[in-house]
């Protein structure tokens, strides 16, 4: 049996290989449902990916193996290098840039297929011309939008750009205009195919790409601060959809299925993020991610003369008397690089027989679930990491709650202050705990810009220190007590 027979066999079986890949993806995702099996799930899906890649390499009549394989070798080395170098705190940026790459891949492949189409007059896989052109337009649009949007998100998370939300005047008018342009030009591309010359077709496709660029930029620029987890989830979904669109251009059913799986995962995460910060899911999909305007409550009204400060040495007594301790970490903890110190306090308390849990709000950190990754990295066992509902149950009977760099997510105003931007947002009910310690550098507000009445409760004590030294001194005072 020579190579050509093997190749022909593999080629005719390629859809089956892709089906195997997709099934492995689905089981991989299923194993991700528990932290115990998640790592195996990831491995399973990676093997599935390998099967698809090898089947393509062998079955698709590659003419220049040397080039293709060397590009793949370089890409693998870069990918592994990047993945090992990135810090866990920087994972959101890393995901944003990878997501940008994903958008670029899909748009660029679409454009390349378009080039080949004009050169040879053949659509890839012999798909009908209308389907091909529609899918190319959709793919170029979503891919470009994802690319630019993800780049802006990367710039914001990395601190290259200002994190503040930047709003174009009459943003909705412009965005509708961009969307309309893309629709009209895309339609023209499809309906005029064959009746106009190549240049005209390129102008149509170019306009789609330009409109997607502008839309991607304005959408992502408008998002700031606390909303960053949403935009990450949303662009993941777009990347999945663009993979699907690419599958429609060349009748690759594997792409269609895998892409829509990811599109669904991104949408679910966007919805759960939206719920966690009380924003309308559909408004977000349409790009209205800006929080509503703020209230008139001034911080002096609330804080004046009612703040009680404490020190690590003083506070140890209260901790000693406690049985159940709940730690509420916010992104401030990661900024202060205090995870290690936090773990040390956790270990001390556990060793002395205390029940210690971490209450993790869904939007704690910079992307969905980020805080759990940061705590797992410093060896906090995952059964101590509690999500919103479970945390609130524990908080009802907790003796001490330690708020560590979190603010808006523990603000009781979310329950009843209708004129604040956080009204209606599900919060961690820290105020139900017996005693509350807030470790915070100053009384500066969170992303929402409003003061926090939690800080002036009778049972609240403030420790005005950086998270890391505060925890280190607490540990020291605990040992010396």
């Amino acid at each position, binding site marked *: 049996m020579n190579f050509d027979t093997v190749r022909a066999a593999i080629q005719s079986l390629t859809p089956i290989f892709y089906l195997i*890949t997709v099934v492995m*993806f*689905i089981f991989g*995702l299923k194993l*991700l*449902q*528990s*932290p115990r099996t*998640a*790592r195996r799930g*990831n491995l399973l*899906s990676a093997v599935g*990916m390998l099967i*698809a890649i090898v089947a393509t390499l062998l079955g*698709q*009549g590659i003419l220049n193996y040397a080039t*293709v394989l060397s*590009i793949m070798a370089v*890409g693998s080395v*870069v990918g592994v290098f990047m*993945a*090992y170098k990135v810090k866990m705190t920087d*994972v959101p940026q*890393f995901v944003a840039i990878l997501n940008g*790459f994903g958008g670029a*891949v899909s748009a*660029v492949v679409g*454009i390349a*297929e378009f*080039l080949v189409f004009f*050169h*040879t007059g053949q659509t890839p896989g012999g798909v009908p011309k209308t*389907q091909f052109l529609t899918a190319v337009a959709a793919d170029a649009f979503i891919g470009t939008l994802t690319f630019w949007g993800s780049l802006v998100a990367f710039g914001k998370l990395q601190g290259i750009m200002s994190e503040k939300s930047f709003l174009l005047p009459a943003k909705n008018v412009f965005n509708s205009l961009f969307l309309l342009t893309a629709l009209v030009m895309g339609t023209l591309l499809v309906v005029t195919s064959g009746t106009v010359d190549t240049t005209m077709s390129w102008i149509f496709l170019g306009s789609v790409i330009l409109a997607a660029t502008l839309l991607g930029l304005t959408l992502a620029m408008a998002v700031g601060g606390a909303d960053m987890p949403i935009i990450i989830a949303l662009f*993941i979904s777009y*990347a999945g959809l663009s*993979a699907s669109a690419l599958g429609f251009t060349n009748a690759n059913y594997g*792409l269609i*299925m*895998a892409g*829509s*799986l990811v599109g*669904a*995962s*991104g949408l*679910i995460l966007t919805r759960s993020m939206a719920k966690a910060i009380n924003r309308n899911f559909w408004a977000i999909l349409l790009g209205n991610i800006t929080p509503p305007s703020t209230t008139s409550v001034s911080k002096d009204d609330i804080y004046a003369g009612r703040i009680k400060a404490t020190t690590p040495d003083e506070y140890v007594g209260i901790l000693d008397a406690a049985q159940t301790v709940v730690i509420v970490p916010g992104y401030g903890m990661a900024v202060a690089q205090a995870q290690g110190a936090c773990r040390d306090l956790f*270990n*001390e308390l556990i060793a002395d027989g205390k029940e210690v849990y971490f209450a993790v709000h*869904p939007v704690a950190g910079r*992307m*969905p*679930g980020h805080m*759990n*990754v940061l705590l797992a990295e410093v*060896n*906090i*066992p995952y*059964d*101590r990491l509690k*999500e*919103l509902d479970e945390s609130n149950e524990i908080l009802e009977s907790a003796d001490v709650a330690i708020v560590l760099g979190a603010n808006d997510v523990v603000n009781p105003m979310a329950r009843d202050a209708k004129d604040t931007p956080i009204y209606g947002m599900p919060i961690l009910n820290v105020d139900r705990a017996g005693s509350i310690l807030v470790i915070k550098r100053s009384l500066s507000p969170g992303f929402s810009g409003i003061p926090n009445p939690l800080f002036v409760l009778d049972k609240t004590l403030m420790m005005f220190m950086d998270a890391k030294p505060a925890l280190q001194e607490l540990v020291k005072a605990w040992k010396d007590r």
Partner: protein
Amino acid sequence: MDPIVLALMLFTLSVLIGFEVITKVPPILHTPLVVASHAMAAIMVVSAIEIAGNAGDTLAAQILGGIALLLGVINVVGGYVIADRMLANFKSGKAKTGAKGKS
């Protein structure tokens, strides 16, 4: 059956399977989920391979395909490796890792 109908059916069914499987992933694993599903979306490399290796004599398309292939492979490999790195950190309390008792 018209191929486009088949394609749309597969698309719809996969979205539904995706919703079903992914809503059951606990929030604690949402970051690894994002990274892993992201790596799956990068299955687009197979199209990049086809176009880079098989775009006939259309040089421009081959170059674009090469760029897409490079970015796509970074995406796949980077995504899976970082997800693995993260998931390796998730340990059960019963394993007694890290949480050593005070003597």
